[in-house]
């Protein structure tokens, strides 16, 4: 039985904002199927009343003083931007013609 189909892989790739070709989809389907099949050994374990561990340290709600601070200077922020104009990062048109 396969755990993940070619269609599902294409769907997941779209969710993850990855463009993959049909050839790649086929390759990734095989590999992901093998990994997920391997991961299903976890089902051997009864975890009915086991709390999940999201974090290993016993800490929650770590706050700091809410003090006003300057943000990063605009010129610094734009240094690594692939395209910018008038102090703003530029992207292709989002709204149609």
């Amino acid at each position, binding site marked *: 039985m396969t755990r*993940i189909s070619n269609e*599902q*892989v294409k769907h*997941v*790739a779209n*969710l*993850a*904002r*990855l*463009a*993959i070709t049909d050839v790649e989809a086929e390759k*990734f389907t095989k*590999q*992901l199927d*093998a*990994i*997920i099949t*391997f*991961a*299903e*050994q*976890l*089902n*051997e*374990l009864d*975890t009915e009343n*086991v*709390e*999940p*561990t*999201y*974090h*290993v*340290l016993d*800490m929650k709600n*770590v706050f*700091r003083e809410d003090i006003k601070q300057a943000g*990063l200077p605009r010129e*610094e*922020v734009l*240094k*690594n*931007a*692939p*395209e910018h104009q008038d102090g703003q*990062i530029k*992207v*292709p*048109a*989002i709204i149609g013609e």
Partner: protein
Amino acid sequence: MSLFDYKVSDLHELLHKKEIKVADLVDESYKRIAQVDNKVQAFLTLDEEKARQTANTLDEKLTADSSTGLLFGMPIGIKDNIVTKDLRTTCASKILENFNPIYDATVVQKLQQQETVTIGKLNMDEFAMGSSNENSYYQKTRNPWDLERVPGGSSGGSAASVAAGEVLFSLGSDTGGSIRQPAAFCGVVGLKPTYGRVSRFGLVAFASSLDQIGPITRSVEDNAYLLQAISGLDQMDSTSANIDVPNFVSALTGDVKGLKIAVPKEYLGEGVDESVRQSVLEALKVLEKQGAAWEEVSLPHSKYALAAYYLLSSSEASANLARFDGVRYGYRTPNAENLLELYKNSRSEGFGDEVKRRIMLGTFALSSGYYDAYYKKAQQVRTLIKKDFENVFEKYDVIVGPTTPTRAFKIGENIDNPLTMYANDILTIPVNLAGVPAISVPCGLDNGMPLGLQIIGKHFDEETIYRVAHVYEQATDYHKQKPGI
């Protein structure tokens, strides 16, 4: 003899007696890099001009004011997923090929306070995903002990550069074994600190609940000095722990009398080479002779760690790597008519296959209808693995076993099968899931390739693992062996 055959404390003394200068140390680095790095290929970016300038400034300072910290002037290499202001930081990915960070990671700031000298940035598997450095977009780092073999990963450049004598020491990062496994493969000392001991601010996130930065060195003592410099609570990382940082070097008492060692039978079982098993049993004899006692124990959920790890780390990665979208920084595709194409094509052209595979696995495990079956299940198994460690640590001081199931494998040997590649990390992954600290120290050679002994400690008890590692190191000659390169 190389200057890097000396320990930090010796070099410090030589500097202050004016027998050497910081410029000599920095020169040693770049000379060695010029000599061997075309073969080892550990460095992605060098910072030579600035490093030499810094060396001169420090030398002038040394004449005027003789009181300095111990790490003053020491040449260090930094893994390329730790951001360094104005020094290219790529994560060994095409997507960050031209990325020049606008701030320094907390660990880098701390090193600057200690006045170390950054030599350059070190190769790794792309975004720290891999165990061989074969997933780097730029180059394949080689193992200095045998250039046909991998240095391990993902901190392969960090371990290989120290083993090859290109730097005195380096920083790596460890999510599932990425400091300890390459340290073992390259015959050097590597420590993954307790989760929360070292700030992750400025470490490009892979799996945030598992990642830790740690030191790679030639000796246990140097390792303790370097950890001292980078540890501590940081306002910029809410997961850094508000807990005192002890003096790690003073923990090196040379005494393990009465120490209780647990040896998990799962760590010496199936899949672990006989030579690796023997080297661990020999090491236990050495520690016994020094007054420690060991017993076999069980960490019954060990075999499930690998599966849980891949689900969890990939899930976290799929969220963390969403920031690479071609908009604010990093690679932007020239082939995009609209915003959606910009995202998709930038990411597809910028990421390598292993990174894509894990992003997709994580997205799948987190997607509606599969979340409980995969992600939540893995988090529950993580609880069981953590409890395994807690149970053993009720009775024992440390856990000892091998770092890796085999010696370093050949380049290309595991590249086509992700699952065999992942199996390399079965002995290191449980440690990250539990958040405990662990060190790898050299424990002999198998057909000319180094093996590593792994010593695992309780939460925030790096002191005990350093003490044990130091006693073992001083009782053996393995740390003195060096590659012939």
